């Protein structure tokens, strides 16, 4: 009699506990699960060159059911500014950070501090000069290969004869690992071709440097290693301010495409920025879903576009992502 009473009380309490658990689960389910929030910090984020990247982020956020916020930034950032922004985002409840590292020695240190709080995914460039030493995962196109492809296109256009030709190389910065890789790839492609680098210019978009390209000595080819440089070079070329130099470059904005379309640029290597955005967020999302997972590097594609291939079906899609 006593035993059965015990069993009865036990059964009722187990059922009662189950009811309570179920009620809690139901209530929690009704409140909706909190979406993971990821903040994106890139330089000059409102610029057109990030259109495809942002579109990629947006699509990934939809697919992964996450929330993203791209921090509005203008111009170049210092390390301190970037750290402050990252901290501010973490304080605002960001569960992960996607970040374009500021070139510099101390970036890695700063990132380590942030990483203690939330997972960090780099985009466009590694933080460390030596890619192997970088302890942070990065999503970027193969910069070296892009530089090399650009060189190969130039070589092809000149019938493999570049002897005595002079080049002007412009890049937003020569500090960033990405720019260095691109330059290295480009130089590798033109190794032993007898070309001469007339000048190398940095930071064309910065104030006070608007005339710089005009004042530089005449070269046969202007090689722009990033989108900002390419649009600057395209602008000069369109205005016939480049002393007839032909522009080759790496770019990912509709402006860049426009200069290609109008003949101000000869050849364009377009990194797949959509996938930089998409895959970086996907990687962060997977990390947030499985805490013990280690984030991995992701490498995205690039496309070589010329004026006559600008409107092929595939390239139209690239333009589509840039136009979002």
């Amino acid at each position, binding site marked *: *009699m006593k035993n*059965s009473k015990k069993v*009865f009380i036990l*059964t*009722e309490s187990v*059922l*009662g506990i*189950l*009811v309570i658990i*179920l*009620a809690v*689960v*139901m209530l929690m*389910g*009704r409140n909706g699960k909190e979406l993971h929030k990821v903040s994106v910090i890139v330089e000059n984020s409102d610029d057109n060159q990030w259109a495809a990247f942002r*579109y*990629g982020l947006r*699509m990934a956020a*939809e*697919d992964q*059911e996450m929330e993203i916020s791209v921090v509005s930034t203008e111009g170049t950032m210092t390390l301190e500014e970037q750290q402050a922004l990252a901290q501010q985002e973490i304080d605002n409840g960001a569960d992960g950070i996607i970040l374009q590292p500021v070139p510099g020695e101390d970036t890695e240190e700063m990132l380590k501090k942030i990483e203690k709080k939330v997972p960090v995914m780099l985009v466009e460039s590694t933080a460390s000069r030596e890619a192997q030493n970088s302890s942070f995962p990065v999503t970027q196109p193969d910069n070296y290969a892009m530089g090399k492809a650009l060189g190969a296109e130039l070589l092809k256009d000149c019938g493999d004869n570049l002897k005595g030709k002079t080049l002007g190389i412009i890049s937003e910065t020569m500090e960033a690992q990405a720019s260095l890789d691109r330059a290295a790839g480009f130089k590798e492609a033109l190794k032993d071709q007898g070309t001469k680098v007339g000048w190398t210019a940095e930071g064309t978009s910065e104030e006070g440097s608007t005339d710089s390209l005009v004042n530089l000595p005449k070269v046969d080819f202007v090689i722009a290693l990033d989108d900002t440089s390419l649009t600057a070079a395209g602008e000069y070329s369109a205005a016939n301010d480049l002393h007839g130099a032909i522009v080759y470059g790496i770019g990912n904005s*509709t*402006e860049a*495409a*426009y200069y290609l*379309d*109008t*003949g101000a640029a000869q050849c364009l290597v377009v990194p*797949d920025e*959509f*996938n930089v955005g*998409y895959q970086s967020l996907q990687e962060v999302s997977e990390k947030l879903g499985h805490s013990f997972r280690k984030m991995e590097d992701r490498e995205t594609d690039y496309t070589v576009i010329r004026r006559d291939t600008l*409107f092929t079906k*595939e390239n*139209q*899609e690239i*333009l*589509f*992502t*840039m*136009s979002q």
Partner: protein
Amino acid sequence: MEKVKNRFFEYLNKLKPRGIQSILMISFSVLSVAVMLTLGVVLYIRFSNVSRDEIVETTRKLMEQTGENLEDYLVSMRQISDAVYYNVVKESDFSAEQNEIQEGMNLLYEANRDNLRSIAIYNDYGSLMAAEPVASQKEDPNVTRQSWYQQAMEEVENMHFSTPHIQNLFDDGTKGYYWVISLSRMVEITDGGDSRAGVLLVDMDYSSISRMMDQINTENSGQYFYLCDSNGEIIYHPRQIQISDGIFDENNQTAAGYKEGVYDEVFNGEHRKVLVNSISYTGWKLVGVIPYSTFTHGMVNIRYFIMMLILLMAMMLAFVNRLVSVWISSPILKLNDSVKDYEAGEKPRIYIGGSQEIRHLGYSIQSSYEQIDDLMKKIVLEQNERRKSELDALQSQINPHFLYNTLESITWMVEGERNDEAAFMISQLAKLFRISLSKGRTVITIKDELQHAQSYMNIQKVRYKNSFAVVFDVDEEIYSYCTVKLVLQPILENAISYGVSAMDEGGEIRITGRREEGTVILAVTDNGIGMSEEEVRFILTDSTRVPKHGSGVGLVNVNNRVQLLFGKEYGLKVESEPDEGTVVSIVIPAVPYTEENRKILEKGYLFGKNVIKKIEDAGKENEKQ
């Protein structure tokens, strides 16, 4: 493995219910759990079917609505195209009325600029004749190689809707590119009085369509809509770029082959419902995709609800089950407990309560226990009585009064020198005592009993100076049967005291013995004063009634002793008539005297009844023969 299995079964065996309440509780619980689970599953299936149908129906309606909106939009584009052609271009000459044409186009463009990117007319060489909004044409847009131009030129009667593409015609200075859907048709244009073919292009802003589609693609549940043309080329898809990048797959080629309706398909291992809606004039298909996971997603709450319902019902049923099982089992348990207490030696009342059957059970158990108690008491009583009777018998063997009288008689005889008589008396007395003692046996032969009676009567006759006659009339065949010892003597004593002693002469006591149907009947008949009916009735029940100067052993005692050994159907029978005399018969079974039978009979009726029964049966058999 085997060990684990054995342990499991051992555990199961241990779990076997032992009490009626557990059995009831478990059976009720199993039954109710089964019923609830079945109910839950059936409810869930029913709910999920209803909800699935509802989702499909809602989606179908939504798609119909969107399809109509799209159709409206496309119709308005066609109307613009018609208006440009019939109202503006057809009536005018491009050379002469360029301004009017431009104005007319401008009016139409301005009225629809939200949805339009541009309106343009090209001639059969691909040269731009007029465009709105006015913008510089690109250097070499290669119009004749663009698909919208080619389609219009190939099928001149139709209007053609292209798939979305980048507009590659004008340079408006924004350095941007527009994603458009081209509506092209061949038109006849008049230029300088000559009629020639041309192509009228209305470039619709893709964002108008994508906006419409985005509006319905807001749900987060996995369900989505896309738009493709009749060849399966995607016009709009929420994951357009992912598809071209190979991140996502769509079954658009198959969907293009579907007619309007609802289809079930398995794509990339995912079961899904596909709703297809055709957009008229264009051959486009609006496709809604509902993965089955969406249905489940919507059912999660219902699932929780049903689980909650089942749990609450389980709680309630457990409670009710317990109440019912306690209600049913408690009287049985109480009954069982009281029986156990009884068995343990206590003597509580047997529980009587609960349902009618259990009450009956209680009553019958109680009455059987009471009967057992009565029987036990009776047995104890009988044992006591038997002991008492035997003691009485023992006492009667050496009744001092009788002995005193007899010895006095002998003394007188010796004093009167009647030595022969004295010797006779002494020898009779000796015989009497020898049989009285009989080595302590209770059962003796009838012969010995008769001998005892004879000795007794001989002594009494001397004492009463032969005032009555004694006749022995006994069949010799019964001599060797068993009888209880000293049963005749008290009867004879009785016959003398109450029957013949008072008579002056002519008194006679007759002792008869014969066998009759397996029984032996010894009878003592006197012709004395007899008894009234009332006296006869008392003589076998009133144990106080004993002869005043006799052995002190009443007929009751004799009767008891006979019955103790042979059973209730045997014993004494008394018949008497006042002034006529009395007959007292001893009826006993005809058991042959052997050592074995004697021992069995001496243990009492309970042990001897088998022997007696056998004899009775044999007696009956003999009778029949």
